[in-house]
């Protein structure tokens, strides 16, 4: 037992150290991004294209909530951020953590819920009143609860509805968008999701879109080059690339094949 254990240990050590010994590979860019872009599969499309355009760089994606993405960038743990939390981004820029901030793309948030809609929120167009209706119906609502961009927007909507969500019906999951959608589907609960993640998981979810199209639900993604980035030049190149026409064209096509419609709309200024 123990002898076998030490062989295994030796093997594990060998395999772990092997890649470290030849570290003169491509230069790394650390991209802190939102879970929604990662869960939707957008990066699987974009990053290989970036790799082809710039084979000398390698992008490492850290998929976390927007709030966390900005915080770890402020600590210097990321070179470039892709976020969708406008207010937090403005604070980030005002604090001098960001060198530049540019729009990349947008989609929208949707309120999703069980197909039979026990709270009966279909009739509402305004997201805030729909949330108020869920609150008064006693149906379950699952909040991201992780200070992500989606969580920030959800709190804005509750504020707009004039409500402090609290009680047995309001669950704070503290997890990413994909996990929360799975949870809502399992529990027959309502939640706020970005459309991209929802569409990319739709076939695995027993959830319908119940509220959409409210201007308060617009979801804008921006790319920020971090001021104190340890790979500043590389970060600039990535931000430049993702806002340039070829990448913007890729974004506008992403999801058309699978969902019949794009998941994101490109919105970078052409310059």
């Amino acid at each position, binding site marked *: 037992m123990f002898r076998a254990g030490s062989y295994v240990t030796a093997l594990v050590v060998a395999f772990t150290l092997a890649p470290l010994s030849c570290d003169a590979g491509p230069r790394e860019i650390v991209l802190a991004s939102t879970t929604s872009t990662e869960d939707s599969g957008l990066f699987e499309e974009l990053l290989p294209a970036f790799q082809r355009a710039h084979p000398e760089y390698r992008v490492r994606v850290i998929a976390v909530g927007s709030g*966390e993405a900005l915080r770890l960038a402020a600590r210097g743990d990321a070179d470039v951020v892709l976020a969708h939390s406008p207010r937090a981004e403005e604070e980030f820029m005002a604090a001098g953590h960001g060198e530049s901030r540019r729009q990349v793309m947008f989609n929208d948030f949707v309120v999703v819920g069980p197909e039979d809609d026990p709270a009966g929120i279909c009739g509402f167009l305004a997201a805030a009143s729909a949330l108020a209706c869920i609150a008064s119906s006693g149906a379950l609502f699952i909040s991201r609860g992780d200070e992500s961009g989606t969580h920030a927007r959800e709190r804005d909507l509750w504020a707009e509805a004039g409500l402090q969500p609290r009680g047995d019906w309001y669950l*704070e999951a503290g997890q990413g968008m994909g996990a929360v959608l799975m949870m809502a589907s399992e529990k027959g609960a309502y939640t706020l999701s970005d459309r991209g993640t929802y569409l990319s998981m739709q076939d695995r979810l027993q959830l319908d879109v119940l509220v959409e199209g409210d201007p308060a639900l617009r979801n804008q993604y921006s790319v920020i080059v971090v001021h104190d980035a340890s790979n500043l030049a590389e970060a600039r190149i990535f931000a430049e690339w993702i806002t340039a026409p070829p990448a913007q064209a890729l974004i506008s096509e992403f999801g058309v094949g699978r969902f019949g419609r794009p998941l994101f709309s490109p919105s970078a200024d052409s310059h």
Partner: protein
Amino acid sequence: MDVFVDAIKQAFHLLVSGDPYIWRIISRSLQVSGLAVLLGLLAGIPLGTWLGLTRFPGRGVAVALVNTGLALPPVVVGLFVYIILSRQGPLGSLGWLYTPGAMIAAQFVLAAPYVAAITLAAVQSVPPELRLQARALGASRWQAMLLHLREARLSLMAAVAAGFGAVISEVGAVIMVGGNIQGETRVITTAIVLETRRGRFATAMAFGLILLVIAFTANAFITRVQQAQPRRRRPLTS
């Protein structure tokens, strides 16, 4: 380094001030892992005793399986339990997913092999003459077996400590099947993940310190048992 020291200082403050958010999560952790280990004992002790005291074809495979159970990856256990408890799964009608019940079930699967494997080792370390002698003196089979288990009791306590230490520090399974819901299924480990992500290092550190204390206590106990064992060995035949 300052960040680290600050986090530890604030963590102590949070713990001493009795922040209800923190203590509720700690008690939920103890409750879930405690129950899982208790159920693990109920299943693992009979299994380990049986494997230790009987000989049958295929026993070698069964022992190997139990020992493999010691290395069960929590995320894989989480995956299986998730599928079984999800709405389309065989036990979906229970509605257990994302409840403490699901977390107890997953941690039970992780804890039971610990208890079984350590019980097995403990039972085998007691000289078999003990049972024979007891039988010769007129004890029933059950009495002889209980005597045998009594001799192995310190090791059994170590089994409890080892199983508990393993499941309470496990995050992979509980975050999948529990969902990290505040006030319901958030436990020490999932809270550390979330608070670190939120950048609230002091809170994360408070949980981390508690977890270290628990792990240390469990291991100190195991060490004591292991150190005490040799001295207890006295000749059974005189």
